[in-house]
């Protein structure tokens, strides 16, 4: 009788332990499940935030193409008829500095002389104005560029000296926020 009772008690104890083990196993699976869901959600959320940051930077770069010709470092005549013209001589001088790189979150910035056509090539002090492009910020990898037409102005010493107005285009690319 006592032996039967002992084996019955043993059986109940083993069953209880089995139940506890099952419960622990379920708990571990549950936590693992929530951890995987949280990780997947986190990855999606971070990608969304990165996209939002990139869109904000691109929107800023796009707005800048419309207003950059009026910035004090580029503008020709502060007051008067040409207050949104780009001063080519200032651009040439600023090309030798890293001012625009420090000032604006841009990957790429270039001004191209569109009309009248000029000989192709990068502008420097030595070959100006017989050149087409003035690259202010250069990099190997840059994203999509926003562009805008601008009026360029430069001094021509001939015939007593006068200011010549030309058509130009400005190219700007925003820096990736994760860089």
């Amino acid at each position, binding site marked *: 009788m006592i032996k039967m009772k002992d084996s019955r008690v043993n059986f109940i104890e083993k069953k*209880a332990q089995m*139940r*506890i083990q099952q*419960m622990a196993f379920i*708990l571990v699976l*549950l936590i693992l499940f929530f951890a995987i869901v949280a990780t997947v959600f986190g990855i999606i959320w971070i990608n969304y*935030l990165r996209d*939002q940051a990139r869109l*904000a930077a691109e*929107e*800023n770069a796009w*707005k*800048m193409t419309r*207003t950059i*010709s*009026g*910035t*004090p*470092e580029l*503008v*020709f*005549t*502060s*007051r008067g008829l040409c*207050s*949104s013209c780009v*001063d080519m*001589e*200032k651009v*040439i*001088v*600023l090309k030798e500095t890293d*001012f625009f790189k*420090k*000032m*604006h979150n841009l990957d790429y910035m270039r001004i191209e002389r569109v009309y009248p056509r000029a000989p192709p090539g990068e502008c420097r*002090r030595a070959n100006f104005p017989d050149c087409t492009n003035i690259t202010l910020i250069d990099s190997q990898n840059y994203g999509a560029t926003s562009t805008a037409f601008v009026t360029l102005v430069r*001094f021509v*010493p001939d015939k007593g*000296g006068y*200011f010549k107005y030309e058509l130009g285009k400005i190219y700007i690319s925003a820096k990736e926020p994760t860089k």
Partner: protein
Amino acid sequence: MSFSWLFATIVGAVVIFLAIFAAARFSETLIFQQNTFTAKKIVNSLSSFETTFETGRFGIMETRVETIIINNCTTSKEYGPFGALQIKSSQKIKFGSKNWSERDSAMISSKDKFLFSTGEVWGKKFYVFSKPLFFPFKIADLVYLWSDQQQFCFFNTPADIERELKNQKVENINFKRGPSPSGVCLPQETTVCFSSGQNCNITVDLSAKKVLKNGRTIHFEYAFGDYDQKALLYAAIFSDPEVYECQIKRLILRASYLSEVYYLKSEFLSPRGCGSDIVRNDLREYNATASSLTSSAGLHSLFSKAESIDDKNERLACKLY
């Protein structure tokens, strides 16, 4: 109650508690993210107020909920060649343990914007007015910000200032005249007096070029240009003294840099028959004066250098600017 039921109840309670805790923490993160997006949008929208050929621009920014805009400013070169404007924002969302005004965003910096306002501006509608600053060449666009919670009473305003602000259709500013502002200006309005008197929150002394507010005196100068002379005056009126002094230091840093650029331009053009030693000397002096300035009180000495440059530039056959 059997052991398994008891165990399941305890574990269930722990899981539910952890879920609620995680949700609460996540919502705080979401609110921080939302506030940061708002601050970034505000800084981006300030680009729309940059002037080209206009003498000024006025516009309105509206938010869906009540928002605080916190205007910080730093002259540290760690943030940019001319310091930086730093903006934080917080929106009125009734959730969580913190008061909504304490739940601000990440700091959003802008190196090329100059915003003049009180340290904290709150409301749903924000009025933005901008004017270019010429000293004597263009230094920057100054942006002034106030909200629908800030009403101004301009008392005994000179006709040209009143005309300019009315032409720009600037809102939340009332123009009153009389022997004393009390009785004509409402108690909730910020009184700006252009003649000495009592009961004025802000007193403007146009002849001494000083503005007295919050017990502090800040200095302004008349800028150059037919329609843009009062850019610094408006900055002094609409901003806190601390914000004004910091932004003035940033403007002076930029003015100093621009004088170097014009100096280099003049040197570049000199072999081509354009450019003048006299102007270059003046630019060098302007740069030296700007580099030594530490507060708005020094604007008067910089003005005399600027006047000299402007006068000589006007007489040049090929103007520098």
